[in-house]
């Protein structure tokens, strides 16, 4: 049974691929929210247009996906967040960008809008103004409570964001995040962009996941146009995606240990990460492999000496990494910091649909590569590690296991990489009608969703990019509760959420 069978809808949108999209009335919208609240469906995405809002939902059991659309010519829609908290930041963003008002919302404070753009509701298509009030952080009351304000400029080399801690002595009573500092207006720049320009923007939504974003964007375009990239191109895409995962996980493991003052691990994984980036540079001409994946295929082949560079990398990882695992596992002073620190409850991971290591360290068994089996993963074999403890240690172990899986995947891909084309030619246009496409890919930190509508000339009419961090950041607020402030960098690093990815 499809998702839409249980949600009353007015009509299905036939140009939406590969999953169905349907326009619903208020009854259908509420029915969809009911399914989210009772846990039968997981919220995958929630985004706006000038006179409509869309929700993408996943049925975890069958891996079915559907989008429901509520049209709001009057500028209002029934709030999702007041019944289903994971929607809150996305709902505030819709209000900020489009000026649409969620009726019944408990929290309509601005999210991305810091009153610095010189305009309100920039994607609403009209001149709107908004009443400006000082930003109110949520209250925490009690004797001996004090606040610690951190950011937006932090002490490390990290992205800008603000953390407001309320603490009782050393213990965190409440953490509230305030983001939006890196808001670049990516979705507005997307409007009217050529596919090439749009792919570049998508690739720079979160630089550490540039391959995953380019991959998802290309798949969404290909879904909309009903074309398929050649087999060799999809294998090269996965090769880059796994290299990106390796490099990031290696960097993260080192950085987490470094935040527990264990510099040796940081130095060792830093060497391995650098070797990954150098191999990527040899193979694809760019250390982060930016702009290699484009709609239709890939822009370049792997370099002639790329295969041997990657095989040498795998050999080095196979030799060195097991020793580092042992080092992590046998250093009691390190375990003392990571075990039972920053626990994410399994219930929250499920409710928020937390992707990546945050979800999988707390029992949520979802990986877009396996669940959706997008090309070429349908023909590759790999395991998805899942743990239950939900602490910093579990998030480290998920990364360790995923590094092992990525090494095996890269090996399989290199073995399967036969001759073949790199690109499927795109049609000159759609023949007039708009086409819609959607795709999910598994970035190192979780699933990236891209939804887009192309006009007749293959320009982007509207594109929404949803980072996994949207559903992970709020869980960090919960995970730090009751921990000491000094453990925040450790917890934060174990999440390593993207700021740019959610600020857009």
């Amino acid at each position, binding site marked *: 049974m499809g998702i839409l069978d249980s949600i009353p809808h007015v009509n299905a949108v036939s140009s939406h691929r590969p999953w169905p999209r349907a326009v619903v009335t208020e009854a259908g919208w509420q029915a969809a929210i009911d399914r989210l609240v009772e846990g039968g469906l997981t919220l995958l995405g929630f985004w706006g247009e000038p006179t409509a809002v869309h929700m993408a939902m996943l049925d975890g059991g069958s891996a079915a996906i559907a989008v429901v659309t509520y049209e709001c010519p009057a500028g209002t829609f029934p709030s999702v967040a007041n019944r289903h908290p994971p929607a809150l930041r996305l709902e505030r963003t819709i209000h900020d960008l489009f000026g649409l008002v969620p009726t019944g919302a408990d929290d309509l404070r601005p999210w*991305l809008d*810091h009153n*610095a*753009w*010189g*305009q309100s509701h*920039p994607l609403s298509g009209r001149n709107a103004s908004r009443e400006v009030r000082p930003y109110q952080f949520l209250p925490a009351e009690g004797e001996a409570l004090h606040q610690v304000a951190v950011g*937006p*400029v932090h*002490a*490390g*080399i*990290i*992205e*800008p964001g603000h953390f407001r801690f309320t603490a009782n002595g050393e213990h965190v009573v409440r953490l509230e995040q305030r983001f*939006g*500092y*890196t*808001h*670049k*207006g*990516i979705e*507005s*720049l997307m409007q009217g962009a050529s596919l090439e*320009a749009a792919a*570049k*923007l998508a690739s*720079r*939504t*979160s*630089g*550490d996941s*540039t391959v995953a974003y380019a991959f998802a964007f290309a798949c969404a375009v290909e879904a909309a146009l009903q074309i398929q990239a050649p087999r060799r191109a999809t294998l090269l895409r996965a090769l880059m995606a796994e290299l990106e995962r390796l490099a990031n996980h290696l*960097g993260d493991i080192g950085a987490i240990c470094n935040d527990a003052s264990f510099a*040796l691990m940081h*130095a*060792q994984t*830093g*060497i391995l*990460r*650098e070797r990954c*980036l150098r191999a990527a540079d040899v193979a694809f001409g760019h*250390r*982060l492999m*930016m702009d290699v994946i484009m709609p239709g295929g890939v822009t370049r082949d792997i370099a002639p000496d790329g295969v041997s560079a990657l095989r040498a990398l795998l050999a080095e990882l196979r030799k060195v990494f097991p*020793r*580092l695992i042992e*080092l992590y596992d*046998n*250093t009691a002073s390190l375990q003392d910091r990571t075990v039972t620190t920053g626990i994410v409850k399994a219930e929250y991971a499920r409710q928020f649909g937390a992707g990546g290591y945050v979800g999988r360290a707390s029992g949520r068994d979802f990986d877009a590569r396996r669940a959706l089996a997008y090309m070429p993963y349908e023909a590759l074999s790999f395991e998805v590690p899942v743990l239950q403890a939900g602490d910093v240690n579990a998030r480290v172990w998920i990364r360790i296991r995923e590094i092992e899986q990525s090494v095996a995947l890269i090996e399989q891909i290199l073995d399967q990489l036969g001759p073949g084309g790199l690109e499927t030619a795109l049609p000159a246009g759609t023949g007039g009608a708009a086409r819609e496409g959607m795709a999910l890919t598994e970035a190192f930190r979780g699933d990236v969703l891209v939804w887009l509508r192309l006009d007749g000339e293959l320009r982007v009419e509207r594109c929404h990019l949803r980072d996994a961090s949207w559903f992970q950041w709020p869980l960090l607020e919960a995970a730090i509760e009751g921990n000491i402030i000094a453990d925040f960098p450790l917890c934060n690093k174990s999440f390593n959420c*993207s*700021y*740019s990815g959610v*600020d857009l």
Partner: protein
Amino acid sequence: MRKTLLESLTHGSLTEPAPAPDGSALAELAAKVDRAAQARLGRSLAIREVDAGSCNGCELEIHALSNAFYDVERFGLRLVASPRHADVLLVTGPVTKNMREALERTYNATPDPKWVVAVGGCAIDGGIFRDSYACVGGVSETVPVDLHIKGCPPSPTDLLKGLLALLEHVGGER
């Protein structure tokens, strides 16, 4: 742990020889650094990184500067935690409007003499985000810039060349 430590000691060093300072960067700096500053700082610079709205790609490569291959500290370049400890601000991103005030305040918190290095294509002129309602554009539209390091993102070697040029210039004419 002992084995890993011992091996690190007995194996040859991974750290690579320094690249030559970037010639064009030297030229850009030539007019900007005065003698007094050179005398005071010598060949040692404290660097504060400010992300003014980047995609985080530049941050990844700035991080890499500290790994064993580049080992930026051997040149007297140190990444510090506060602008109050810094001689150099390393600024990335198209300077989002939401970050402009924080960048200005960071600049004002940095003691003189100070230099600003704009890192990456976005920091030069806003890059692909230039035309957005949410971005100011290049870093130089918000604070004075002494040196630009190009690239999307610039590789650690590019970063090192630029920073060495800065160092040569600051310490060179004593």
